[in-house]
């Protein structure tokens, strides 16, 4: 088998069977003509063959030319639609998946650690699936014969709204104040309390378990991170990664709260006993926490979707 045979084989393998015989005949003739030309001007036949094939280049590229196949996965006509759809899916489906998995796991009475771990791994798997299938879909559309189906034409209506900076600044200030106040109150609960034990020491409102395991610090860190993303969004350029990260931080806070509430890990049983609260009061606090967290989750999903669409 000569070098030319191997080259022709490699090129033909990528072509539809009915085109092969004709292209093979022509390609071989063209290669032979080029080699003869070089040999006539004094080149050694083997060297001439190598030079001619080198000039023809990668046989797969040649085959793509013959078959009129694109040499890219997703071309410029579809690229923007592709990235927009991908961003929208990631920003909406991921928080929803995280929330649903966390809820289901929390209802199974799993401990907070495994709720967070399961929610995280499900989100990761979902992200990979979304990335893979969206890319596959668009790569297929790119290769579909007669690709005249324009998904949509752009009009100025699609321009993002100018951000009203002032309004957003008020929001930012309120969010900062709320975060600081909320974190301070949480951190103060073990030392400032309406109830005292037999030694006169305060009984914290929140479960000591949160401090023993460090969960409370993790929670406050998440809240602060979410606030950090709000600042990034206000002062930096808004972009999809920031929106997704902010959404995830918010979602993580809510999930953690739901998991803690479902496992009866928020209120301190000693405080309830000392304050003489009924079991019902305890249950309503948990229902309230879960309802608020669900609301936050839904809001985060809607917000992310809105921003990605406008972005």
């Amino acid at each position: 088998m000569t070098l030319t045979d191997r080259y022709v084989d490699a090129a033909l393998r990528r072509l539809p069977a009915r085109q092969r015989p004709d292209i093979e005949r022509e390609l071989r003739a063209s290669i032979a003509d080029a080699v003869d030309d070089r040999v006539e001007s004094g080149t050694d036949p083997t060297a001439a063959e190598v030079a001619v094939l080198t000039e023809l280049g990668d046989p797969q590229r040649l085959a793509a030319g013959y078959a009129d196949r694109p040499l890219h996965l997703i071309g410029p006509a579809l690229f923007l639609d592709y990235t927009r759809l991908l961003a929208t899916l990631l920003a909406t489906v991921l928080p929803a998946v995280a929330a649903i998995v966390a809820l289901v796991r929390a209802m199974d009475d799993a401990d907070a650690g495994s709720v967070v771990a399961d929610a995280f791994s499900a989100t990761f798997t979902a992200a990979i699936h979304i990335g893979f299938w969206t890319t596959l879909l668009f790569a297929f559309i790119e290769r579909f014969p007669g690709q005249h189906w324009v998904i949509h034409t752009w009009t100025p209506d699609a321009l993002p709204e100018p951000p009203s900076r002032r309004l957003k600044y008020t929001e930012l200030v309120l969010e900062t104040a709320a975060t600081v106040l909320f974190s301070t109150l949480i951190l103060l609960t073990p030392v400032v309390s309406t109830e005292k034990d037999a030694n006169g020491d305060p009984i914290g409102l929140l479960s000591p378990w949160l401090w023993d395991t460090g969960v409370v610090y993790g929670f406050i860190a998440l809240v602060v991170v979410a606030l950090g993303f709000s600042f990034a969004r206000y002062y930096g350029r808004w972009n999809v990664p920031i929106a997704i990260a902010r959404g995830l931080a918010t979602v993580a806070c809510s999930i953690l709260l739901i998991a803690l509430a479902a496992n009866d890990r928020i209120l301190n049983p000693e405080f309830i006993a000392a304050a003489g609260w009924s079991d019902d009061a305890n249950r309503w606090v948990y229902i309230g926490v879960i309802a608020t967290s669900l609301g936050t989750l839904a809001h985060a999903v809607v917000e992310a979707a809105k921003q990605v669409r406008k972005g």
Partner: protein
Amino acid sequence: MPEDELLATHLQELRRGTVVLACLLILQRPNYGYALLDLLEKYGFAVDANTLYPLLRRLEKQGLLTSDWNTDESRPRKFYRTSADGTALAQTLSHDWDELDAAFRSLKGES
């Protein structure tokens, strides 16, 4: 991007499409792939073999070229020839080229 690479990119952009017109004009007389490659080079239209050969088939598929296998010689060769449609397109493209040329001339104040 190095300077000569930049130049090469601009030249390539400018010349894109001229090979089609050159092929349609040269192939008023039937000819085969390698000879056409040689002729184009002689006339000053630089084109790579791996661009030209698929291009010929694409033009044939679009009905701008017709082809026949010539088996008179020891090496059978596929001869392409510009079709009536191809001739019409060549006229339109030539006209466009002339207009562009005139536009450039007046732009440079030569008219």
